[in-house]
């Protein structure tokens, strides 16, 4: 490794370094505020370093290119948002809170490794870093049975998924004789002679392992329980950082190669997309718990993204990236509202508890409305442009069946978003008492996310340019 390699890896190094510093700081003195500030400072420094990092391949294991930089920025920004949310959320609760930030920093490091991985080894390493930290984060509320149960569920299923992934890696290595992802993609797409009997099951197992992380049908069974049991900020983290990083990896090696042209692989993704859109939206209809509803809705959204993913080409890749960026903002905002409304001993999650929210907390209700409308893809919000992009990608590839299913299921999706909105605007019987103001950290975050949401919704030009740059920086 050369000095330039170290500079290229600066964002990853800063995150890792911050984790250690925070750990030491906690050992010296426990202070929630100080830990939060240190964490944010570290993440912000890593974010700033993105502008200085040269784009180059770092050994065979990692690659820092325009594409990786874009996703690194996304993940780091989401981690900062998580930190603010978590600070507000855990400030109301008792017990040791500081270690959560260490776990999160390690998970973020894992996500960063995944994003810039160019080797099956770093893929696995990043994924495990992410998963193992997530076990702890999900079960962080040790006194709450739901949280512990969710952590255990995630642990068992993630371990199984990792086993599948490892087996897939082994098969791919046996069939193609390399673990370098660019070469793997090249061999698979060159159509040259290789052992399909080993390679195809290898790809299938790889998709299984990654599909679990993405929570697409049929690998989605853990999602509602984990979303429900995990503390709300952690749920937001799983929905954004964890899924975004895995999708970034998937997109990097699938979109340009001809792997998707292999009929069976294309079919598998089509079935996954269809099933995710249908199951996600239909099951979300049955939920009365907002976190579970958002869990199913996230399954559906991953289905939408897969439609653009399958459309392929630069337009498809841009649509996926743009959708993920918009989805990050929206999901952080939606879970952010759930998080800031939660009390010291339980979260506000049932739809009934949101009844009349507009008359008690008009601003929070308005923000939640904007987030839900964005998830539903209504104009003036980021979700609209994102959905437009995805449908455009699908239409350009003439995948009419998938596009029509997308349109119809997102119509179904509207129904459950509207149900929450209706409840928030229902007039209460008596005038409710004024509620305490939100914590400044929470207010800052929600305001920033709302502004972003509307800004992307009306003037997406800048984000479109960045996304375009990221995708051209890929090949």
């Amino acid at each position: 490794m050369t000095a330039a390699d170290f500079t290229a890896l600066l964002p990853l190094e800063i995150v890792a370094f911050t984790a250690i510093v925070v750990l030491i700081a906690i050992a010296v003195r426990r202070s929630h505020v100080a830990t939060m500030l240190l964490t944010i400072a570290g993440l912000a420094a890593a974010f700033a370093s993105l502008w200085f990092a040269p784009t180059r391949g770092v050994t065979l294991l990692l690659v820092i290119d325009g594409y990786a930089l874009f996703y690194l920025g996304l993940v780091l920004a989401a981690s900062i948002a998580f930190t603010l949310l978590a600070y507000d959320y855990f400030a109301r609760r008792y017990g040791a809170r500081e270690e959560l930030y260490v776990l999160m920093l390690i998970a973020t490091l894992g996500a960063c490794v995944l994003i810039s991985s160019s080797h099956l080894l770093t893929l696995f390493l990043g994924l495990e870093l992410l998963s193992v930290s997530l076990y702890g984060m999900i079960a962080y509320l040790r006194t709450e049975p739901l949280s512990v149960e969710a952590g255990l569920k995630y642990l068992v299923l993630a371990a199984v998924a990792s086993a599948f992934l490892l087996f897939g890696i082994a098969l791919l290595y046996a069939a193609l004789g390399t673990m370098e992802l660019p070469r793997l993609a090249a061999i698979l797409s060159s159509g040259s002679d290789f052992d399909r009997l080993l390679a195809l099951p290898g790809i299938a197992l790889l998709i299984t392992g990654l599909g679990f992380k993405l929570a697409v049908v049929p690998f989605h069974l853990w999602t509602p329980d984990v979303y429900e049991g995990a503390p709300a900020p952690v749920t937001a983290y799983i929905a954004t950082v964890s899924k975004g990083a895995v999708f970034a990896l998937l997109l990097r090696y699938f979109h340009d190669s001809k792997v998707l042209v292999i009929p069976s692989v294309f079919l598998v993704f089509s079935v996954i997309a269809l099933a995710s859109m249908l199951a996600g939206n239909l099951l979300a209809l049955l939920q009365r718990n907002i976190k579970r509803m958002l869990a199913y809705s996230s399954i559906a959204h991953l289905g939408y993204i897969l439609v653009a993913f399958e459309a392929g080409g630069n337009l498809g890749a841009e649509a996926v990236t743009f959708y993920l960026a918009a989805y990050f903002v929206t999901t952080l905002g939606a879970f952010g509202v759930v998080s800031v409304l939660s009390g010291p001993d339980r979260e506000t999650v049932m739809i009934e508890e949101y009844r009349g929210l507009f008359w008690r907390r008009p601003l929070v209700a308005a923000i939640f409305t904007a987030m839900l409308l964005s998830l539903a893809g209504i104009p003036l919000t980021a979700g609209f442009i994102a959905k437009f992009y995805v449908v455009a990608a699908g239409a350009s590839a003439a995948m009419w069946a998938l596009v029509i299913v997308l349109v119809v299921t997102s119509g179904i999706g509207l129904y459950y978003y509207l149900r929450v909105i209706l409840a928030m605007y229902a007039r209460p019987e008596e005038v409710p008492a004024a509620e305490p103001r939100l914590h400044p950290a929470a207010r800052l975050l929600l305001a920033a996310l709302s502004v972003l949401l509307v800004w992307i919704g009306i003037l997406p030009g800048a984000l479109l340019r960045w996304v375009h740059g990221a995708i051209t920086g890929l090949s």
Partner: protein
Amino acid sequence: MTLVWLIVILLAGGTAAAIAARWSATLCRAIALLATLVDLALALFLWAQNNSAALDVPWLPQFGIHFHLSVDGLSLLLLLLTFFLGAIAVVISWTEITEAVGFFHLNLLWTLAGIAGVFLAADLFLFYFAWELMLVPMYFLIAVWGHENRAYAAVKFFLFTQLSGLLMLVAILALYFVHHSATGVYTFDYRALLGTPLAPQTSPGTAAPLTAITPHTEMWLMLGFFIAFAVKMPVVPLHTWLPDAHTEAPTAGSVVLAGLMLKTGAYGMLRFVLPLFPNAARAFAPVAMALGAAGILYGAVLAFAQTDLKRLVAYTSVSHLGFVLLGTFAGNTLAMQGALVTILCHGISTGALFALAGVLQQRIHSRELSRMGGLWTAAPRLSGAALFFVLASIGLPGLGDFVGEFLVLLGVYRVNVPLAVIAAIGVLAATFYGLRLVQRAFYGPNTHDWRFRDLVPHEGLVLGVMAVTLLWLGLYPQPVIRTFQPALNRLLAEVTTK
């Protein structure tokens, strides 16, 4: 630049009104009224200038999307109607809305902004954007300030319009990509897409040239647009959201829904379905006209059976919009002129009827015809106004609606005699439901012994202005027809030359 102001004033006015409501509800209402009146004045100014203004700035150049607004006679008249009814909607809710006044006016003005955007857009992406934009505030108008069954009505309204809108989005995108493959240019511009080469109706066996839309594709694309507009209009099998939404909405919501939102569907048919897909539209015209005629009869029969005043008026809308559909697809100047005049006059007469229903409901807290009866003795001015607007709505000669329906019948008779006969029966049926309404509610003995305040000045003023406008349109519609005639001629040229 005037065009963008038309939208900005409404958006900013709505926001300002919402903020002003923190201090004073009256100030909030005044700001909202001022915003609509300024827009009305601007539109009148444009009319007097008689120029076709346009504004075109790149918005998302990556996709060939422009922020392109333009106005011709057709959209100008609909804009005038929008701001006219907008101001009336603000005045008519002056005493009705007491809760969350600021949020109400925000939603009302933003709905109007969306509608104005629909009439102004000359870029299909922008059009879809505005099309969707008007839904959310209207949804809130129904869901928050509506009557008993508001939640159900609001959700139904939203689902119907949103789903059909998404179908249109798919059709728009398909057109976008087809246009690209035919010409090599990515654009959503209306004028450019009008120039998309269409293959002539080929006999089976002869292959169409690859650089043009095949008739098959054209038909599918046309249907995507048609269904979206048909839901909004509404065309009969897709109309079921309308009675619920119109009935449950607050007065201002009903006025905007019936007077303006339905017109966006009719406008879409004229502006997009006919000129973009002329061959498919011609082939589909018999079906569309049959649907229109069916709507006329169906709406009239159901209106006759209603006992809820607002529901009754809602079904008359289905009937009247049947005339519009019939006239739109008849394919000759007379019928189209009739459709346009009907669009304008129905907006005013039905808007006035909903306003009256709102005034009555505020007084007697009921919309049931059986709870009324003999109201004339209690409120002669209100009842007289109701009689006037009912007569206008059923097509009394001398009032605007008559001109529209007469022209439609005249035009359709040249194309299809049986449908003209059916439509004429519809006119007859209208007298039945109209007179039944007046008789049940206002004539006869005052059995419930109602005593309440007659029309107050601001209500009287609003209804008076509407009545005068209807009289003007009925006696001397020439200025209006002269305004939209050039646009209509261009449209007919697009349809017939391709």
